[in-house]
Protein backbone atom coordinates (compact mmCIF):
# COMPACT_ATOMS: atom_id res chain seq x y z
CA UNK A 1 0.00 0.00 0.00
CA UNK A 2 2.84 2.36 0.89
CA UNK A 3 4.42 1.83 -2.50
CA UNK A 4 1.10 2.49 -4.20
CA UNK A 5 0.57 5.63 -2.14
CA UNK A 6 4.03 6.95 -3.01
CA UNK A 7 3.68 6.30 -6.73
CA UNK A 8 0.27 7.97 -6.85
CA UNK A 9 1.46 11.03 -4.94
CA UNK A 10 4.57 11.32 -7.11
CA UNK A 11 2.59 11.27 -10.32
CA UNK A 12 0.14 13.80 -8.84
CA UNK A 13 3.08 16.08 -8.06
CA UNK A 14 4.34 15.78 -11.63
CA UNK A 15 0.91 16.67 -12.99
CA UNK A 16 0.63 19.63 -10.59
CA UNK A 17 4.02 20.86 -11.81
CA UNK A 18 2.93 20.47 -15.45
CA UNK A 19 -0.43 22.16 -14.92
CA UNK A 20 1.25 25.12 -13.19
CA UNK A 21 3.66 25.46 -16.11
CA UNK A 22 0.86 25.42 -18.69
CA UNK A 23 -1.01 28.07 -16.67
CA UNK A 24 2.17 30.17 -16.54
CA UNK A 25 2.47 29.96 -20.33
CA UNK A 26 -1.16 31.06 -20.80
CA UNK A 27 -0.32 34.75 -20.55
CA UNK A 28 2.28 34.34 -23.29
CA UNK A 29 -0.29 33.13 -25.82
CA UNK A 30 -2.12 36.47 -25.71
CA UNK A 31 -1.62 37.78 -29.24
CA UNK A 32 0.59 40.83 -29.44
CA UNK A 33 1.65 42.57 -26.26
CA UNK A 34 -0.34 41.29 -23.25
CA UNK A 35 0.41 44.48 -21.34
CA UNK A 36 -1.11 46.57 -24.12
CA UNK A 37 -4.16 44.31 -24.24
CA UNK A 38 -4.61 44.59 -20.47
CA UNK A 39 -4.26 48.37 -20.31
CA UNK A 40 -5.93 49.23 -23.60
CA UNK A 41 -4.43 50.83 -26.67
CA UNK A 42 -4.74 54.37 -25.33
CA UNK A 43 -2.46 53.67 -22.36
CA UNK A 44 0.71 55.65 -21.65
CA UNK A 45 4.06 54.07 -22.43
CA UNK A 46 5.18 54.73 -18.85
CA UNK A 47 2.15 52.89 -17.43
CA UNK A 48 2.86 49.96 -19.68
CA UNK A 49 6.44 49.77 -18.55
CA UNK A 50 5.30 49.96 -14.93
CA UNK A 51 2.86 47.08 -15.39
CA UNK A 52 5.38 45.08 -17.40
CA UNK A 53 7.81 45.48 -14.56
CA UNK A 54 5.19 44.72 -11.90
CA UNK A 55 4.23 41.49 -13.64
CA UNK A 56 7.88 40.66 -14.26
CA UNK A 57 7.24 40.41 -18.00
CA UNK A 58 10.44 42.38 -18.71
CA UNK A 59 12.54 39.57 -17.29
CA UNK A 60 13.84 36.62 -19.30
CA UNK A 61 11.26 33.82 -19.62
CA UNK A 62 13.33 31.47 -17.51
CA UNK A 63 13.57 33.97 -14.61
CA UNK A 64 9.84 34.64 -14.87
CA UNK A 65 9.11 30.93 -14.59
CA UNK A 66 11.38 30.56 -11.55
CA UNK A 67 9.79 33.57 -9.84
CA UNK A 68 6.36 32.14 -10.60
CA UNK A 69 7.19 28.79 -9.00
CA UNK A 70 8.72 30.60 -6.04
CA UNK A 71 5.55 32.60 -5.46
CA UNK A 72 3.34 29.55 -5.89
CA UNK A 73 5.31 27.66 -3.28
CA UNK A 74 4.50 30.47 -0.85
CA UNK A 75 0.83 30.40 -1.94
CA UNK A 76 1.25 33.90 -3.37
CA UNK A 77 -1.06 34.22 -6.38
CA UNK A 78 -0.23 37.86 -7.12
CA UNK A 79 -2.47 40.92 -7.20
CA UNK A 80 -5.54 41.68 -9.28
CA UNK A 81 -4.95 44.43 -11.87
CA UNK A 82 -8.53 45.58 -11.48
CA UNK A 83 -9.20 45.66 -7.75
CA UNK A 84 -5.53 45.81 -6.68
CA UNK A 85 -6.35 43.20 -4.04
CA UNK A 86 -4.35 40.03 -3.41
CA UNK A 87 -5.84 37.29 -5.62
CA UNK A 88 -5.57 34.79 -2.78
CA UNK A 89 -8.05 36.81 -0.69
CA UNK A 90 -10.50 37.12 -3.59
CA UNK A 91 -10.19 33.39 -4.12
CA UNK A 92 -10.98 32.59 -0.50
CA UNK A 93 -14.19 34.60 -0.82
CA UNK A 94 -15.30 32.91 -4.04
CA UNK A 95 -14.22 29.35 -3.23
CA UNK A 96 -16.95 28.40 -0.69
CA UNK A 97 -19.68 29.30 -3.20
CA UNK A 98 -18.18 27.08 -5.90
CA UNK A 99 -17.50 24.23 -3.49
CA UNK A 100 -21.09 24.43 -2.24
CA UNK A 101 -22.45 24.41 -5.78
CA UNK A 102 -20.25 21.51 -6.91
CA UNK A 103 -21.13 19.47 -3.84
CA UNK A 104 -24.86 20.15 -4.24
CA UNK A 105 -24.64 19.21 -7.93
CA UNK A 106 -22.91 15.98 -6.98
CA UNK A 107 -25.60 15.15 -4.40
CA UNK A 108 -28.35 15.82 -6.96
CA UNK A 109 -26.56 13.61 -9.47
CA UNK A 110 -26.25 10.73 -7.02
CA UNK A 111 -29.83 11.05 -5.78
CA UNK A 112 -31.08 10.78 -9.36
CA UNK A 113 -28.53 8.39 -10.83
CA UNK A 114 -28.60 5.56 -8.28
CA UNK A 115 -32.35 4.88 -8.19
CA UNK A 116 -32.55 5.35 -11.95
CA UNK A 117 -29.58 3.14 -12.76
CA UNK A 118 -30.62 0.40 -10.33
CA UNK A 119 -34.21 0.37 -11.61
CA UNK A 120 -33.02 0.25 -15.21
CA UNK A 121 -30.68 -2.66 -14.46
CA UNK A 122 -33.20 -4.68 -12.46
CA UNK A 123 -35.94 -4.13 -15.02
CA UNK A 124 -33.66 -4.58 -18.00
CA UNK A 125 -35.31 -4.51 -21.44
CA UNK A 126 -38.62 -3.22 -20.10
CA UNK A 127 -40.20 0.15 -20.92
CA UNK A 128 -38.88 1.37 -17.56
CA UNK A 129 -35.32 0.59 -18.66
CA UNK A 130 -35.63 2.27 -22.05
CA UNK A 131 -37.39 5.22 -20.44
CA UNK A 132 -34.59 5.68 -17.94
CA UNK A 133 -31.96 5.40 -20.66
CA UNK A 134 -33.83 7.85 -22.90
CA UNK A 135 -33.91 10.29 -19.99
CA UNK A 136 -30.19 9.79 -19.52
CA UNK A 137 -29.50 10.39 -23.22
CA UNK A 138 -31.48 13.61 -23.00
CA UNK A 139 -29.57 14.62 -19.88
CA UNK A 140 -26.25 14.10 -21.63
CA UNK A 141 -27.35 16.19 -24.59
CA UNK A 142 -28.80 19.22 -22.77
CA UNK A 143 -26.10 21.81 -22.04
CA UNK A 144 -26.02 23.69 -18.72
CA UNK A 145 -26.53 27.03 -20.43
CA UNK A 146 -29.91 25.89 -21.76
CA UNK A 147 -31.03 23.77 -18.83
CA UNK A 148 -30.44 26.73 -16.50
CA UNK A 149 -32.58 29.31 -18.35
CA UNK A 150 -35.28 26.66 -18.84
CA UNK A 151 -35.45 25.91 -15.10
CA UNK A 152 -35.52 29.63 -14.36
CA UNK A 153 -38.34 30.09 -16.85
CA UNK A 154 -40.38 27.30 -15.32
CA UNK A 155 -39.71 27.47 -11.57
CA UNK A 156 -38.90 31.16 -11.10
CA UNK A 157 -40.87 33.07 -13.71
CA UNK A 158 -43.96 30.91 -14.25
CA UNK A 159 -44.37 29.21 -10.89
CA UNK A 160 -42.54 31.80 -8.82
CA UNK A 161 -41.25 29.15 -6.38
CA UNK A 162 -37.53 29.83 -6.48
CA UNK A 163 -35.29 32.87 -6.92
CA UNK A 164 -33.96 33.66 -10.41
CA UNK A 165 -30.35 34.15 -9.43
CA UNK A 166 -27.89 35.11 -6.71
CA UNK A 167 -26.82 33.29 -3.55
CA UNK A 168 -28.99 34.24 -0.61
CA UNK A 169 -30.53 31.24 1.10
CA UNK A 170 -30.89 27.53 0.42
CA UNK A 171 -33.68 28.17 -2.09
CA UNK A 172 -31.26 29.94 -4.40
CA UNK A 173 -29.08 26.81 -4.45
CA UNK A 174 -31.82 24.52 -5.80
CA UNK A 175 -31.87 25.53 -9.47
CA UNK A 176 -28.08 25.81 -9.94
CA UNK A 177 -27.61 22.43 -8.28
CA UNK A 178 -30.28 20.85 -10.49
CA UNK A 179 -28.69 22.40 -13.59
CA UNK A 180 -25.25 21.16 -12.68
CA UNK A 181 -26.40 17.77 -11.40
CA UNK A 182 -28.57 16.62 -14.31
CA UNK A 183 -25.77 16.07 -16.83
CA UNK A 184 -23.71 14.13 -14.32
CA UNK A 185 -26.78 12.15 -13.23
CA UNK A 186 -27.30 11.09 -16.85
CA UNK A 187 -23.76 9.76 -17.27
CA UNK A 188 -23.70 8.21 -13.82
CA UNK A 189 -27.01 6.37 -14.19
CA UNK A 190 -25.75 4.67 -17.37
CA UNK A 191 -22.62 3.66 -15.52
CA UNK A 192 -24.58 2.30 -12.54
CA UNK A 193 -26.81 0.33 -14.88
CA UNK A 194 -23.95 -1.17 -16.92
CA UNK A 195 -21.87 -1.99 -13.88
CA UNK A 196 -24.79 -3.53 -11.99
CA UNK A 197 -25.82 -5.63 -14.99
CA UNK A 198 -22.33 -7.05 -15.17
CA UNK A 199 -22.31 -7.96 -11.47
CA UNK A 200 -25.83 -9.43 -11.52
CA UNK A 201 -24.55 -12.20 -13.76
CA UNK A 202 -21.87 -13.29 -11.26
CA UNK A 203 -21.87 -16.52 -9.29
CA UNK A 204 -22.13 -14.90 -5.88
CA UNK A 205 -25.37 -13.23 -6.89
CA UNK A 206 -26.77 -16.61 -7.87
CA UNK A 207 -25.61 -17.98 -4.53
CA UNK A 208 -27.31 -15.14 -2.69
CA UNK A 209 -30.52 -15.83 -4.56
CA UNK A 210 -30.22 -19.58 -3.90
CA UNK A 211 -29.90 -18.83 -0.19
CA UNK A 212 -33.41 -17.43 -0.47
CA UNK A 213 -32.52 -13.80 0.17
CA UNK A 214 -35.07 -11.25 -0.89
CA UNK A 215 -34.49 -9.66 -4.29
CA UNK A 216 -33.93 -6.20 -2.78
CA UNK A 217 -31.31 -7.63 -0.41
CA UNK A 218 -29.57 -9.40 -3.27
CA UNK A 219 -29.45 -6.26 -5.40
CA UNK A 220 -28.75 -3.64 -2.78
CA UNK A 221 -26.48 -5.49 -0.36
CA UNK A 222 -24.68 -8.00 -2.55
CA UNK A 223 -24.64 -6.74 -6.11
CA UNK A 224 -24.61 -2.96 -5.70
CA UNK A 225 -21.60 -2.89 -3.38
CA UNK A 226 -19.53 -4.69 -5.97
CA UNK A 227 -20.92 -2.62 -8.79
CA UNK A 228 -19.88 0.58 -7.04
CA UNK A 229 -16.16 0.33 -7.76
CA UNK A 230 -16.15 1.37 -11.44
CA UNK A 231 -18.82 3.94 -10.63
CA UNK A 232 -16.50 5.63 -8.13
CA UNK A 233 -13.82 6.04 -10.79
CA UNK A 234 -16.29 7.58 -13.21
CA UNK A 235 -17.51 9.87 -10.45
CA UNK A 236 -13.96 11.11 -9.86
CA UNK A 237 -13.26 11.63 -13.54
CA UNK A 238 -16.58 13.34 -14.15
CA UNK A 239 -15.79 15.85 -11.45
CA UNK A 240 -13.75 17.68 -14.06
CA UNK A 241 -16.82 18.06 -16.23
CA UNK A 242 -18.71 19.13 -13.11
CA UNK A 243 -16.16 21.84 -12.28
CA UNK A 244 -16.07 23.02 -15.90
CA UNK A 245 -19.87 23.04 -16.01
CA UNK A 246 -19.88 24.99 -12.75
CA UNK A 247 -18.26 27.92 -14.59
CA UNK A 248 -21.19 28.17 -17.01
CA UNK A 249 -23.79 27.40 -14.33
CA UNK A 250 -22.39 30.19 -12.16
CA UNK A 251 -22.75 32.63 -15.04
CA UNK A 252 -26.35 31.56 -15.72
CA UNK A 253 -27.38 32.06 -12.09
CA UNK A 254 -25.01 34.94 -11.17
CA UNK A 255 -23.56 32.58 -8.55
CA UNK A 256 -20.61 34.42 -6.94
CA UNK A 257 -18.03 31.63 -7.28
CA UNK A 258 -14.68 31.04 -8.93
CA UNK A 259 -16.31 30.48 -12.34
CA UNK A 260 -17.97 33.88 -12.27
CA UNK A 261 -14.65 35.34 -11.16
CA UNK A 262 -12.87 33.69 -14.11
CA UNK A 263 -15.26 35.04 -16.72
CA UNK A 264 -15.30 38.51 -15.12
CA UNK A 265 -11.51 38.51 -15.18
CA UNK A 266 -11.45 37.44 -18.84
CA UNK A 267 -13.85 40.24 -19.76
CA UNK A 268 -11.81 42.81 -17.82
CA UNK A 269 -8.53 41.44 -19.20
CA UNK A 270 -7.34 40.86 -15.65
CA UNK A 271 -5.05 38.04 -16.76
CA UNK A 272 -3.30 37.27 -13.45
CA UNK A 273 -6.74 36.53 -11.97
CA UNK A 274 -7.62 34.31 -14.96
CA UNK A 275 -4.42 32.35 -14.44
CA UNK A 276 -5.02 31.95 -10.73
CA UNK A 277 -8.62 30.76 -11.25
CA UNK A 278 -7.68 28.19 -13.88
CA UNK A 279 -4.82 26.98 -11.70
CA UNK A 280 -6.97 26.66 -8.61
CA UNK A 281 -9.86 24.82 -10.29
CA UNK A 282 -7.47 22.44 -12.08
CA UNK A 283 -5.46 21.71 -8.96
CA UNK A 284 -8.61 20.93 -6.98
CA UNK A 285 -9.52 18.52 -9.73
CA UNK A 286 -6.10 16.85 -9.60
CA UNK A 287 -6.37 16.63 -5.82
CA UNK A 288 -9.82 15.06 -5.91
CA UNK A 289 -8.79 12.59 -8.59
CA UNK A 290 -5.74 11.48 -6.65
CA UNK A 291 -7.98 11.04 -3.63
CA UNK A 292 -10.42 8.96 -5.72
CA UNK A 293 -7.55 6.74 -6.83
CA UNK A 294 -6.51 6.17 -3.24
CA UNK A 295 -10.07 5.51 -2.06
CA UNK A 296 -10.49 3.09 -4.93
CA UNK A 297 -7.36 1.20 -3.97
CA UNK A 298 -8.41 1.19 -0.34
CA UNK A 299 -11.82 -0.24 -1.27
CA UNK A 300 -10.47 -2.81 -3.70
CA UNK A 301 -7.38 -4.69 -2.55
CA UNK A 302 -6.97 -6.21 -6.02
CA UNK A 303 -5.75 -2.89 -7.37
CA UNK A 304 -3.10 -2.01 -4.81
CA UNK A 305 -1.81 -5.57 -4.79
CA UNK A 306 -1.55 -5.64 -8.58
CA UNK A 307 0.43 -2.40 -8.58
CA UNK A 308 2.67 -3.45 -5.73
CA UNK A 309 3.82 -6.63 -7.38
Amino acid at each position, binding site marked *: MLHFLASRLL*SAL*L*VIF*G*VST*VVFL*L*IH*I*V*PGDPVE*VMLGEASQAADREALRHALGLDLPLWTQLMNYYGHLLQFDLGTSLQSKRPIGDMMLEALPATAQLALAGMVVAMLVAFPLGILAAVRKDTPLDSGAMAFS*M*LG*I*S*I*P*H*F*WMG*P*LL*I*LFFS*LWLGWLPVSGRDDWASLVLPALTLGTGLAAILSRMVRASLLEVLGEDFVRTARAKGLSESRVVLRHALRNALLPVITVLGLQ*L*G*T*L*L*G*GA*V*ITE*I*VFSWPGVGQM*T*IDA*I*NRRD*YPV*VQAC*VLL*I*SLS*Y*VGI*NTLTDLVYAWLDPRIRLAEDS
Partner: protein
Amino acid sequence: MRIWGPTAIVVVWLLMAVLGPWLPLAPNHIELEHILAGPGSGALLGFDDLGRSLWDRVVVGAQFSFFVSLLVVSISLSAGTLIGASSAYLGGWVDHVIVRIIDIFLAFPGILLAIALAGLLGPGLSNIVIALSIVGWVGFARLARAQVLSLRHREHVQAAQMLGAGPLRIIVRHLLPLIMAPLIVEATFAIAGIVIAEAGLSFLGLGIQPPTPSWGSMIRDGSRYMLVSPHMVLVPGIALILVVLAVNLLGDRLRDRMDIRLRERK
Protein backbone atom coordinates in the same frame (compact mmCIF):
# COMPACT_ATOMS: atom_id res chain seq x y z
CA MET B 1 -35.53 1.94 -38.04
CA ARG B 2 -34.59 3.99 -34.98
CA ILE B 3 -31.67 5.35 -36.93
CA TRP B 4 -33.79 7.34 -39.41
CA GLY B 5 -34.83 10.13 -37.06
CA PRO B 6 -31.31 11.05 -35.94
CA THR B 7 -29.98 10.66 -39.48
CA ALA B 8 -32.64 13.02 -40.81
CA ILE B 9 -31.73 15.65 -38.21
CA VAL B 10 -28.04 15.41 -39.01
CA VAL B 11 -28.77 15.66 -42.74
CA VAL B 12 -30.89 18.78 -42.19
CA TRP B 13 -28.09 20.27 -40.10
CA LEU B 14 -25.59 19.49 -42.84
CA LEU B 15 -27.83 20.93 -45.55
CA MET B 16 -28.38 24.12 -43.52
CA ALA B 17 -24.64 24.48 -43.16
CA VAL B 18 -23.68 23.72 -46.74
CA LEU B 19 -26.58 25.40 -48.54
CA GLY B 20 -26.87 28.28 -46.04
CA PRO B 21 -24.74 30.73 -48.03
CA TRP B 22 -27.01 30.31 -51.08
CA LEU B 23 -30.31 30.61 -49.23
CA PRO B 24 -32.04 34.00 -49.19
CA LEU B 25 -31.23 34.67 -45.54
CA ALA B 26 -31.02 38.01 -43.78
CA PRO B 27 -29.83 37.18 -40.25
CA ASN B 28 -29.03 40.82 -39.50
CA HIS B 29 -32.03 42.41 -41.16
CA ILE B 30 -34.02 44.40 -38.60
CA GLU B 31 -37.78 44.74 -38.66
CA LEU B 32 -38.61 47.15 -35.87
CA GLU B 33 -42.35 46.46 -35.93
CA HIS B 34 -41.71 42.78 -35.16
CA ILE B 35 -39.44 43.17 -32.11
CA LEU B 36 -39.84 40.13 -29.78
CA ALA B 37 -42.76 38.85 -31.87
CA GLY B 38 -43.45 35.15 -31.39
CA PRO B 39 -43.50 32.36 -33.97
CA GLY B 40 -46.02 32.70 -36.76
CA SER B 41 -46.01 36.49 -36.87
CA GLY B 42 -44.47 36.99 -40.28
CA ALA B 43 -41.51 34.69 -39.69
CA LEU B 44 -41.57 30.96 -39.11
CA LEU B 45 -39.88 31.07 -35.70
CA GLY B 46 -40.54 34.66 -34.64
CA PHE B 47 -38.18 37.57 -34.06
CA ASP B 48 -35.56 38.52 -31.49
CA ASP B 49 -35.11 41.62 -29.34
CA LEU B 50 -33.81 43.62 -32.31
CA GLY B 51 -36.49 42.41 -34.69
CA ARG B 52 -34.32 39.91 -36.56
CA SER B 53 -35.79 36.70 -37.89
CA LEU B 54 -34.90 33.76 -35.63
CA TRP B 55 -35.20 31.25 -38.46
CA ASP B 56 -32.55 33.05 -40.50
CA ARG B 57 -30.32 33.31 -37.46
CA VAL B 58 -30.72 29.65 -36.51
CA VAL B 59 -29.76 28.55 -40.03
CA VAL B 60 -26.66 30.77 -40.08
CA GLY B 61 -25.85 29.55 -36.55
CA ALA B 62 -26.02 25.99 -37.89
CA GLN B 63 -23.21 26.83 -40.30
CA PHE B 64 -20.91 27.88 -37.50
CA SER B 65 -21.68 24.96 -35.24
CA PHE B 66 -21.21 22.56 -38.15
CA PHE B 67 -17.98 23.92 -39.54
CA VAL B 68 -16.41 24.56 -36.14
CA SER B 69 -17.15 21.02 -34.98
CA LEU B 70 -16.04 19.51 -38.28
CA LEU B 71 -12.75 21.44 -38.23
CA VAL B 72 -12.03 20.82 -34.56
CA VAL B 73 -12.79 17.12 -34.76
CA SER B 74 -10.70 16.68 -37.94
CA ILE B 75 -7.73 18.47 -36.39
CA SER B 76 -8.06 16.72 -33.02
CA LEU B 77 -8.60 13.32 -34.61
CA SER B 78 -5.59 13.48 -36.93
CA ALA B 79 -3.21 15.15 -34.47
CA GLY B 80 -4.34 13.04 -31.52
CA THR B 81 -4.22 9.77 -33.42
CA LEU B 82 -0.80 10.46 -34.87
CA ILE B 83 0.64 11.50 -31.50
CA GLY B 84 -0.98 8.67 -29.56
CA ALA B 85 -0.12 5.97 -32.10
CA SER B 86 3.50 7.13 -32.48
CA SER B 87 3.86 7.32 -28.72
CA ALA B 88 2.73 3.73 -28.26
CA TYR B 89 4.67 2.39 -31.25
CA LEU B 90 7.96 4.11 -30.48
CA GLY B 91 7.74 3.48 -26.73
CA GLY B 92 10.68 4.35 -24.48
CA TRP B 93 11.27 7.92 -23.37
CA VAL B 94 9.11 9.35 -26.16
CA ASP B 95 6.14 7.45 -24.79
CA HIS B 96 6.96 8.54 -21.23
CA VAL B 97 7.04 12.21 -22.18
CA ILE B 98 3.84 12.04 -24.23
CA VAL B 99 1.96 10.17 -21.51
CA ARG B 100 2.96 12.90 -19.04
CA ILE B 101 1.79 15.60 -21.45
CA ILE B 102 -1.53 13.79 -21.93
CA ASP B 103 -1.92 13.52 -18.14
CA ILE B 104 -1.30 17.23 -17.76
CA PHE B 105 -3.89 18.18 -20.38
CA LEU B 106 -6.41 15.78 -18.84
CA ALA B 107 -5.90 17.52 -15.51
CA PHE B 108 -7.73 20.61 -16.77
CA PRO B 109 -11.41 20.11 -16.09
CA GLY B 110 -13.66 19.87 -19.13
CA ILE B 111 -14.25 23.10 -20.91
CA LEU B 112 -12.22 25.24 -18.48
CA LEU B 113 -8.99 25.23 -20.52
CA ALA B 114 -10.94 26.06 -23.68
CA ILE B 115 -12.60 28.97 -21.87
CA ALA B 116 -9.24 30.30 -20.70
CA LEU B 117 -7.61 29.83 -24.13
CA ALA B 118 -10.50 31.41 -26.02
CA GLY B 119 -10.58 34.25 -23.49
CA LEU B 120 -6.87 34.97 -23.80
CA LEU B 121 -6.58 34.43 -27.56
CA GLY B 122 -9.49 36.79 -28.09
CA PRO B 123 -12.74 36.19 -29.99
CA GLY B 124 -12.95 34.94 -33.55
CA LEU B 125 -13.63 31.80 -35.51
CA SER B 126 -10.03 30.62 -35.85
CA ASN B 127 -9.29 31.21 -32.17
CA ILE B 128 -12.28 29.06 -31.15
CA VAL B 129 -11.05 26.29 -33.42
CA ILE B 130 -7.53 26.59 -31.96
CA ALA B 131 -8.78 26.62 -28.36
CA LEU B 132 -11.08 23.63 -28.83
CA SER B 133 -8.48 21.64 -30.77
CA ILE B 134 -5.84 22.18 -28.09
CA VAL B 135 -8.27 20.60 -25.64
CA GLY B 136 -9.68 18.04 -28.07
CA TRP B 137 -6.64 16.08 -29.29
CA VAL B 138 -5.94 14.54 -25.89
CA GLY B 139 -8.88 12.14 -25.87
CA PHE B 140 -7.96 10.76 -29.29
CA ALA B 141 -4.29 10.49 -28.37
CA ARG B 142 -5.11 8.45 -25.28
CA LEU B 143 -7.43 6.14 -27.18
CA ALA B 144 -5.05 5.66 -30.13
CA ARG B 145 -2.18 4.95 -27.74
CA ALA B 146 -4.14 2.30 -25.85
CA GLN B 147 -5.19 0.65 -29.11
CA VAL B 148 -1.70 0.58 -30.64
CA LEU B 149 -0.20 -0.74 -27.40
CA SER B 150 -2.38 -3.82 -27.77
CA LEU B 151 -1.52 -4.28 -31.45
CA ARG B 152 2.12 -3.40 -31.90
CA HIS B 153 3.47 -6.89 -31.29
CA ARG B 154 1.10 -8.52 -33.75
CA GLU B 155 2.68 -10.73 -36.36
CA HIS B 156 1.80 -8.59 -39.35
CA VAL B 157 3.58 -5.65 -37.69
CA GLN B 158 6.66 -7.79 -37.08
CA ALA B 159 6.53 -8.95 -40.68
CA ALA B 160 6.42 -5.35 -41.88
CA GLN B 161 9.34 -4.49 -39.60
CA MET B 162 11.40 -7.33 -41.02
CA LEU B 163 10.61 -6.17 -44.51
CA GLY B 164 12.25 -2.92 -43.53
CA ALA B 165 9.22 -0.67 -43.24
CA GLY B 166 9.82 2.54 -41.26
CA PRO B 167 7.80 3.54 -38.20
CA LEU B 168 5.65 6.03 -40.12
CA ARG B 169 4.75 3.50 -42.77
CA ILE B 170 3.90 0.86 -40.18
CA ILE B 171 1.75 3.25 -38.18
CA VAL B 172 -0.11 4.61 -41.17
CA ARG B 173 -0.43 1.47 -43.29
CA HIS B 174 -0.48 -1.36 -40.78
CA LEU B 175 -1.81 0.04 -37.51
CA LEU B 176 -4.19 2.91 -38.33
CA PRO B 177 -6.62 0.78 -40.35
CA LEU B 178 -7.02 -1.53 -37.35
CA ILE B 179 -7.70 1.20 -34.80
CA MET B 180 -10.00 3.35 -36.93
CA ALA B 181 -13.29 1.86 -35.68
CA PRO B 182 -13.12 3.01 -32.04
CA LEU B 183 -11.61 6.33 -33.13
CA ILE B 184 -14.54 7.00 -35.44
CA VAL B 185 -17.01 6.25 -32.64
CA GLU B 186 -15.07 8.60 -30.37
CA ALA B 187 -15.08 11.23 -33.12
CA THR B 188 -18.86 11.00 -33.43
CA PHE B 189 -19.32 11.71 -29.73
CA ALA B 190 -16.68 14.44 -30.01
CA ILE B 191 -18.79 16.22 -32.65
CA ALA B 192 -21.66 16.44 -30.17
CA GLY B 193 -19.26 17.64 -27.50
CA ILE B 194 -17.77 20.33 -29.72
CA VAL B 195 -21.21 21.61 -30.78
CA ILE B 196 -22.00 22.12 -27.09
CA ALA B 197 -18.56 23.59 -26.36
CA GLU B 198 -18.76 26.08 -29.25
CA ALA B 199 -22.21 27.18 -28.13
CA GLY B 200 -20.92 27.36 -24.54
CA LEU B 201 -18.05 29.66 -25.52
CA SER B 202 -20.45 31.84 -27.52
CA PHE B 203 -22.85 31.85 -24.57
CA LEU B 204 -20.03 33.25 -22.43
CA GLY B 205 -19.31 35.88 -25.09
CA LEU B 206 -15.97 34.27 -25.99
CA GLY B 207 -17.02 32.81 -29.33
CA ILE B 208 -18.21 34.30 -32.58
CA GLN B 209 -18.92 37.97 -32.05
CA PRO B 210 -22.20 39.80 -32.74
CA PRO B 211 -23.95 40.50 -34.97
CA THR B 212 -23.00 37.12 -36.47
CA PRO B 213 -25.39 34.61 -34.92
CA SER B 214 -24.30 31.53 -32.99
CA TRP B 215 -26.71 29.25 -31.14
CA GLY B 216 -24.89 29.93 -27.89
CA SER B 217 -25.04 33.71 -28.13
CA MET B 218 -28.68 33.50 -29.24
CA ILE B 219 -29.49 31.58 -26.05
CA ARG B 220 -27.62 34.18 -23.99
CA ASP B 221 -29.49 37.07 -25.67
CA GLY B 222 -32.76 35.21 -25.27
CA SER B 223 -32.30 34.55 -21.57
CA ARG B 224 -32.62 38.30 -20.95
CA TYR B 225 -36.13 38.35 -22.41
CA MET B 226 -37.41 35.08 -21.04
CA LEU B 227 -40.55 36.40 -19.39
CA VAL B 228 -41.68 38.35 -22.48
CA SER B 229 -40.63 36.04 -25.26
CA PRO B 230 -39.46 32.60 -24.19
CA HIS B 231 -39.19 31.56 -27.85
CA MET B 232 -35.88 33.43 -28.05
CA VAL B 233 -34.33 30.85 -25.71
CA LEU B 234 -36.37 27.89 -26.86
CA VAL B 235 -35.70 28.11 -30.60
CA PRO B 236 -31.87 28.04 -30.65
CA GLY B 237 -31.83 25.68 -27.66
CA ILE B 238 -34.08 23.13 -29.31
CA ALA B 239 -32.02 23.33 -32.52
CA LEU B 240 -28.87 22.71 -30.50
CA ILE B 241 -30.30 19.82 -28.50
CA LEU B 242 -31.81 18.12 -31.55
CA VAL B 243 -28.41 18.12 -33.23
CA VAL B 244 -26.52 16.97 -30.14
CA LEU B 245 -29.09 14.30 -29.35
CA ALA B 246 -29.08 13.04 -32.95
CA VAL B 247 -25.29 12.86 -33.12
CA ASN B 248 -25.11 11.12 -29.72
CA LEU B 249 -27.76 8.58 -30.76
CA LEU B 250 -25.89 7.86 -33.99
CA GLY B 251 -22.70 7.46 -31.97
CA ASP B 252 -24.47 4.98 -29.70
CA ARG B 253 -25.69 2.95 -32.66
CA LEU B 254 -22.27 3.08 -34.26
CA ARG B 255 -20.67 1.82 -31.06
CA ASP B 256 -23.15 -1.06 -30.79
CA ARG B 257 -22.50 -1.88 -34.43
CA MET B 258 -18.74 -1.95 -34.00
CA ASP B 259 -18.96 -3.74 -30.68
CA ILE B 260 -16.02 -2.04 -29.08
CA ARG B 261 -16.80 -3.33 -25.62
CA LEU B 262 -16.52 -6.92 -26.80
CA ARG B 263 -13.23 -6.15 -28.47
CA GLU B 264 -11.88 -4.42 -25.36
CA ARG B 265 -12.74 -7.34 -23.12
CA LYS B 266 -10.53 -9.75 -25.01
